[in-house]
């Protein structure tokens, strides 16, 4: 179980989060662009500190403002696939994939080996290439492959394409969202996992995340017409390999669009 309960102010924007999500499981988080999805990811990954609150995975506490405890991002072992991939331009694909693995603590368990990452995501042919020689989708696959061995939940951010649609055309974005969610749900069903969705409601300066629906996401989909926009998937441990596999298989379809 991932428990997130926190508050963060950035300028005149404030984010209040209170939700829990199953681990292992796939959690889709959505809301208008600018409502704080990426901020939430940064808070869970440890790249930002909450003003107050607590984040916990299972029994492991990552942040607890009451006890003044904060685990440094580098020790959280949470893989993050950033919206803009953030591959290291001076390393080859191979160097990027190995960056995290080389820094794992000695003897640390990792959910997936290097060879599996390469074969599942179909990266074998591009290991020697530089990030700047890759297409957008390829970059995203490498970013996913780089994040997977971290062991804890992999956090993925939605793509620029989805963002753009959300800003200009709510209806179009909703169609995207519907398709993406349907696809994500059928995928989770094949995996025998539950899909939960978390919706961020926003009234311009204040976003509150507290809606949680587990199981069917039909209800949430109905809401999405007003909320529009983006999806963010929070994948957790046991699911990583299979989800990654289906991502690679559906490279040009809706699911991957979530991650691009």
């Amino acid at each position: 179980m991932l428990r997130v309960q926190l508050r963060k102010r950035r300028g005149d924007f404030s984010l209040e989060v209170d939700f829990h999500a199953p681990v292992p499981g796939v959690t889709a988080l959505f809301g208008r662009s600018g409502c704080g999805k990426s901020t939430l990811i940064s808070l869970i990954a440890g790249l930002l500190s909450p003003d107050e609150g607590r984040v916990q995975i299972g029994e492991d506490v990552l942040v607890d403002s009451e006890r003044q405890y904060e685990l440094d991002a580098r020790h959280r072992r949470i893989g993050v696939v950033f919206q803009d991939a953030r591959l290291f331009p001076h390393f080859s694909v191979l160097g990027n994939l190995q960056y995290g693995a080389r820094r794992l603590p000695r003897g640390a368990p990792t959910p997936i080996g290097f060879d599996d990452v390469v074969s599942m995501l179909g990266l074998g042919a591009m290991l020697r290439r530089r990030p700047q020689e890759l297409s957008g989708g390829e970059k995203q696959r490498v970013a996913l492959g780089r994040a997977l061995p971290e062991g804890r939940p992999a956090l993925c951010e939605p793509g620029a394409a989805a963002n753009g649609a959300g800003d200009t055309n709510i209806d179009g974005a909703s169609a995207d969202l519907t398709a993406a969610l349907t696809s994500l749900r059928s995928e989770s069903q094949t995996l025998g996992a539950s899909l939960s969705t978390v919706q961020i409601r926003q009234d311009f300066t204040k976003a509150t995340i507290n809606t949680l629906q587990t199981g069917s996401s039909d209800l949430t989909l109905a809401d999405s017409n007003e909320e529009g926009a983006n999806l963010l998937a929070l994948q957790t441990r046991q699911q990583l390999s299979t989800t990654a596999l289906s991502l690679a298989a559906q490279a040009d379809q809706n699911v991957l669009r979530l991650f691009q």
Partner: protein
Amino acid sequence: MLSPAETEALTLSLSVAARSVLFNLPIAILVAWLLARARFAGRTVFDAFVHLPLVLPPVVVGYLLLVLFGIRGPIGGWLYQNFGIQLAFTSTGAALATAVMSFPLVVRSIRISLEAMDRGLEDAAKTLGAGAVDRFFSITLPLITPGILAGAVTAFAAGLGEFGAVITFAANIPGETRTLPLALYTALQTPDGDALAARLALISFALGLAGLLVAEVLSRRIRRTLGR
């Protein structure tokens, strides 16, 4: 082709300029990092202080160095008594004076590339388990290499021509501190020195041109490996 005195001035210039760059780089990287990343009280004053050699007359810089690093100065005296190191009126002193003069150029160049760098890459490295020092050497330093190199080349080229600070702090000693511009100046002060002055000017000209070409080739090659 070159007379012994000309060769001496040329090699001395090259060596002084090269050593000045070596003095410069580690400190310039640190200072550039402080200015680009750290937030501390007095940062603006510190920034201005770093840029002072650009606006001060070089003779003033040479004079200040003489006060501080001269054999009776607080730093120079300490160095001399404890290690027997003398800087004033030596070629190492010439390199020091040259380094101080070109320091702002190097800092500026490194700082610009630090500020232009995508800090998200450092965040990504952090989520992958890299600590602060590790991140600096595996991500930041390689990505600012073009800036470091550009700064180093500019400093080297500018160092070949440093005149005022060198002659004030290190004097004009043949074979020790008489670099190309000082030799040229000396030739101009000598009757019948016109031909020599012209030859030295030509050497300086060729050297500067070669330096700029090398810089261009290097920066292209580095940009290619970094994929820009």
